[in-house]
């Protein structure tokens, strides 16, 4: 078995890796992922600066609006400086340095640089105020429509929008030909809220700083947990090390899902090629059917591991070169993640789930591929499997909110979901009998699915059964005839 399975594995594997598509996927997946991550910033930077004007008797609203827009950039700058501290509401040296610089009158860019950030990474401001070209709304039309340009630091440019503040009527009008972009209007609304708050405080002779101090003095709510056994003497406050197992379990479950989802195409195409090229008879006089299936599953698993390995090494290399840019907090977080991943209570059930889940879904796709001559035919059979595969992805969203959700607990008993959901449950330390029972049920289901998949594969490969025979075949799943192959 080992020799023939090895030969099938190597032929299929080398066939996959010698295809251009594999290398394109290998190289472009991280690139596309990177683009997705950077897309918002890139899109924002690609957007041309939009100019607006404020027509106002004084400058009260103008100043409030400017302050609001600066505050927005400042929030972004703080989030970029230390995202983990912001997310976990923790103290941070970088944030403290930034706040101190701002308090001393530094601009956002200057404070960002002083706190260790690279100002070029800050998103560019979308909106820039220019002097109002007219003094009332009646004369605005040629500027708003773009017929007449306004003077800007970039030279003459169209006016994107204009605010007209009418103190008598108490209205603020927003003029723009772009009816969809709401960002500038949101800034204006927020600015107006703050402005009215200041005015209300002034009428009762309360300084704004009192309100700001009150806000700053709010007490933080810290998350605590009970420590027992060896950890009884350690701090009860929840740390990154406590949260890391949940992060790891989500990453592992998603990796399994991504692995299965990304190799479907290879499993299908490999089998469809052999069916449409009519190679089965030649193969089946040289290899036993289970050995052939094992070889094919191993080849695609090897391919997946090649992908994962390449990306992991790539990430490692990038991280190494960018090590100076990684803050101590982030490094500490990654350390906690690696420590959690190395815990046998997490990785042993994860590896078992990983293997059984791959066998379960992989054999199903192989079997379906053996019934199809074209990928179009295969697609007609794929829908139920895709729907089944989408359910665990939705469960991941629940797990991020609450890994102990009753929904996940119940769904983990459904064997086709167990490979993903048991991993998610492991950080919640479920009873050992539940873990063992779910693993056993999953193993049994995998065995049954492998058995059925082999029969379907035999029907497709040997008897030439097709898509139309699928339901008829399932109707005949009773002990039947066997062949020597």
């Amino acid at each position: 078995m080992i020799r023939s399975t090895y030969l099938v594995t190597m032929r299929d594997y080398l066939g996959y890796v010698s295809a251009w598509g594999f290398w394109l996927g290998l190289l472009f997946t991280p690139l596309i992922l990177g683009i997705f991550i950077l897309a918002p910033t890139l899109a924002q930077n690609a957007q041309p600066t939009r100019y607006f004007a404020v027509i106002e008797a004084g400058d009260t609203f103008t100043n409030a609006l400017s302050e609001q827009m600066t505050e927005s950039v400042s929030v972004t700058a703080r989030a970029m400086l230390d995202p983990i501290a912001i997310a976990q509401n923790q103290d941070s040296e970088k944030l403290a340095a930034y706040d101190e610089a701002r308090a001393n009158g530094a601009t956002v860019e200057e404070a960002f640089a002083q706190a260790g950030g690279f100002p070029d990474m800050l998103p560019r401001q979308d909106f820039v105020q220019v002097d109002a070209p007219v003094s009332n709304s009646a004369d605005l039309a040629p500027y708003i429509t773009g017929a007449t340009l306004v003077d800007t630091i970039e030279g003459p440019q169209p006016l994107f929008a204009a605010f007209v503040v009418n103190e008598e009527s108490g209205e603020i009008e927003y003029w723009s030909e772009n009816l969809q972009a709401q960002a500038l209007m949101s800034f204006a609304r927020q600015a107006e809220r703050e402005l009215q708050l200041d005015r209300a405080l002034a009428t009762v002779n309360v300084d704004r700083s009192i309100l700001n101090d009150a806000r700053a003095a709010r007490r933080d709510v810290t998350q605590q947990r009970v420590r027992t056994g060896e950890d009884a003497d350690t701090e009860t406050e929840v740390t990154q090390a406590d949260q890391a197992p949940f992060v790891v379990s989500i990453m592992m479950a998603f990796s399994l899902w991504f692995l299965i989802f990304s190799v479907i195409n290879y499993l299908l195409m490999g089998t469809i090629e052999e069916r449409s090229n009519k190679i089965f008879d030649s193969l089946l006089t040289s290899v036993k059917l289970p050995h052939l299936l094992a070889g094919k599953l191993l080849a695609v698993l090897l391919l997946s591991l090649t992908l994962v390995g390449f990306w992991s090494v790539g990430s490692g290399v990038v991280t190494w070169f960018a090590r100076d840019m990684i803050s101590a907090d982030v490094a500490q977080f990654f350390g906690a993640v690696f420590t959690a991943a190395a815990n046998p209570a997490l990785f042993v059930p994860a590896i078992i789930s990983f293997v059984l889940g791959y066998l379960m879904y992989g054999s199903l796709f192989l079997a379906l591929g053996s019934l199809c001559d074209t990928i179009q035919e295969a697609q007609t059979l794929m829908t139920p499997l895709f729907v089944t595969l989408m359910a665990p992805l939705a469960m991941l969203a629940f797990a991020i909110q609450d890994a102990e959700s009753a929904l996940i607990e119940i769904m983990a008993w459904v064997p086709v979901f167990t490979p993903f959901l048991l991993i998610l449950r492991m950080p919640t330390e479920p009873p050992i009998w539940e873990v063992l029972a779910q693993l056993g049920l999953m193993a049994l289901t995998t065995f049954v699915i492998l058995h059925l998949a082999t029969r379907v594969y035999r029907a497709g490969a040997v008897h030439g059964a097709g898509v139309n025979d699928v339901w008829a075949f399932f109707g005949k799943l009773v002990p039947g005839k066997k062949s020597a192959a």
Partner: protein
Amino acid sequence: MGEDLPLKMTGVSKWFGNFQAVRDLDFDVPKGSIVGFLGPNGAGKSTSLRMALGVLSPDRGDVSLLGAPPNLESLKYVGFLPEERGLYKKMSPRQIITYFARLKGMSSRDAKARADELLDMMGLGEFARSRVTKLSKGMAQKVQILSALAHRPSFLILDEPFSGLDPVNQQALEDLIIEEHKRGATIVFSTHVMEHAERLCEKIVMMARGRKVFDGTLDEAFAALGRAVHIGVAEGFDLAAALEPSGFEALQEGDHWRVSLKQAQSSQDALRATLDAGAPITSFTPQEARLRDVFVSLVSEAEAQDLTDTLAADAAEGREAA
């Protein structure tokens, strides 16, 4: 038994749903022989060969391949060319031949050397490293044939090996079969082109409608049909009546008479008897028996028998229903 009869099928039947593809097939292949497995399309030849290899299992009966039921160990000594041709399109001929030879147990080095040797022998050396998609249909078929015999099998089963080949390549394949036979291989090939069987086979098995209708040597096949002469005579002359006293049977077939020759009778005897009977002869053509005639005759009989059986079964069903 496996030593003398590399393949023996006994009482083998196969159904696909309600359709019986093979009916009580008995035949064997003597060691060192070339056996032609003949029959029209749909006769059950490929199904029988797939059962011989264990790709399909019979619903009834026994198959012995190299002395045992078909298994991967015995299949290591068997080379098989399936009816449905197929190759991995992204691989080169050298890679494909090497792959199948290794699956049959050859080492990597030996398999590669053998692939090079066979490709050179068949004039495909310059295409050894090209993708299969670059090859013509005939070349691709040669590659598949080479894959079947790369591991030097002692028993070759070729299902319709001549199908799709041009006359030049058909001749090349005949030569290759003869070479393999000289090497000591036992060979079974199926075909519905009788000329190949006539030139190559020592023994033939004919099938029609899932049944074996003949199993024997070429001479026995010709004997089964019988020899004859075709004699043309002037219109209105009754040759059957004229030859009856001399012991010849004549049957009118269109514009001529077919005169059957019995064991001891020659065409010369028939001509002499016709002249003696005073027949006004317009033509005289001795008929050499061809395998095609034997085939058509036996298949027609089988189809007629099949029709009779069907009608009888229907009648029996009708009686039961009544």
